[in-house]
């Protein structure tokens, strides 16, 4: 293959202001992190509430949570993103619509859409993990918690959830990494996150291989770091005498 690799490209001027291509990648990485972290926090909160709902006695609350999960995990992520960005805003009240479409900076409205989309999509998956984590606990645990006089809320807060979350750290880690990877869909609605900046670099400089190689390395290092962080957390909260914890 006749290709002249030029790794110096990242330090060359983009021709726009005084920016070099590396600046674009840094800014893109910043957006990627901003999208993924905010969406993750929301997904964790919403997913936990839904997961708890699925394990509650009665019919109505579990049914609502189940319907949510089925809806959000059976529609492709991209379709959901386009819904949130192109369709849903048209159904907002007049004033909100004008604000969202005209007054907001286009980057901000794209950002809001993608954060809402990823948060709600990932919440469905977090819900299933939280539910499994709770259901994996011995049934006697909730009986014992109720028997000492805990309310249902206290039973979840002090007994079930602290154990369930420890059990599901590995699958939650994988979901946490997924949200960073999935955030790349934002490039399709014009948010200049890492993938969008990579494509732009490739088009501007024609150094397509270098651009995508750097993007690959950045995604890889980012996710490896997050995984290491989650492993540390998992070790830190491990219960002595259980699940392979130190005696």
């Amino acid at each position, binding site marked *: 293959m006749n290709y002249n690799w030029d790794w110096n490209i990242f330090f060359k001027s983009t021709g726009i202001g005084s920016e070099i291509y590396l600046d674009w990648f840094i800014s893109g990485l910043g957006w990627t992190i901003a999208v993924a972290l905010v969406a993750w926090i929301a997904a964790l909160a919403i997913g936990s509430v839904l997961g708890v709902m699925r394990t509650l006695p009665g019919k109505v609350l579990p049914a609502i949570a189940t319907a949510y999960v089925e809806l959000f995990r059976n529609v492709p992520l991209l379709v959901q993103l386009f819904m949130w960005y192109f369709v849903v805003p048209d159904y907002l009240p007049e004033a909100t619509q004008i604000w969202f479409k005209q007054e907001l900076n286009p980057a901000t409205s794209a950002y809001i859409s993608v954060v809402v989309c990823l948060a709600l999509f990932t919440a469905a998956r977090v819900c299933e993990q939280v539910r499994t984590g709770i259901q994996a606990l*011995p049934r*006697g*645990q909730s*009986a*014992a*918690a*109720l*028997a*000492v*006089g*805990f*309310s249902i809320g*206290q039973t979840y807060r*002090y*007994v079930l959830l*602290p*154990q369930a979350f*420890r059990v599901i750290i590995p699958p939650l880690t994988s979901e946490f990494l997924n949200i960073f990877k999935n955030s790349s869909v934002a490039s399709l609605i014009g948010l200049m996150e890492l993938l969008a900046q990579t494509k732009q670099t490739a088009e501007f400089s024609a150094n397509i291989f270098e651009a995508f190689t750097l993007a690959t390395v950045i995604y890889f290092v980012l996710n490896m770091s997050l995984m290491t962080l989650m492993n540390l957390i998992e070790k830190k909260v491990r*219960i*002595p*005498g*259980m699940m392979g*914890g130190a*005696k």
Partner: protein
Amino acid sequence: MSMIAIKNVSKWYGDFQVLTDCTTDVKKGEVVVVCGPSGSGKSTLIKTVNALEPFQKGEIFVDGVSVGDPKTDLPKLRARIGMVFQNFELFPHLSITENLTIAQQRVLGRSQDEAMQKGMHYLDRVGLKAQAGKFPGQLSGGQQQRVAIARALAMDPIAMLFDEPTSALDPEMVNEVLDVMVELAHEGMTMMCVTHEMGFARKVADRVIFMDRGAIVEDCEKEEFFGDIDARSERARHFLSKILQH
């Protein structure tokens, strides 16, 4: 005065009847042993007392409070009844100390100092003060069950329910748990115990209840129950002949 009064209680899982018209009572300071073959409903019956198992018919009163009444504040009622489970059910993510204090603080609203003092007092009584800083997974089954008894006692219960407290234990650990229970009985604690430990029943029980197929078949004084085996119902005799053989 009866501390636990069970009146004509029946319970169904769908069409299947698990409790049939059960009536008995446990007086203040009384020790009642409930025995019977597996599947006879004895665990279910004891769990209806603190409403861990709902029932469809009949009434249960604990210290005069109706358990089945929808208006009853169940957490408040349960906090006054100690319960010990077959599988201990200590909270594995909490240290022994936290297991002993969390409900005292969160349910009874005691201060940390008070809860700690009370918890340590009972941990000492079950002979495990040295294990305070450990986690449940680091203790043997017998030790865990003793902690579970201390956890229940720290709430100053008006009665204690034991649901096969020694069934999940290795044989050499059964006695350390029974010793604690015997001591408790001698101190005048009101106790309802589902157990197959007939030695324990002989030693401290005031009354013995025998259940079969969801119904109370025998309910009599200990002396009567063990004294004249031939006067017992056929099913009770059959059961006793099996567990008293050795």
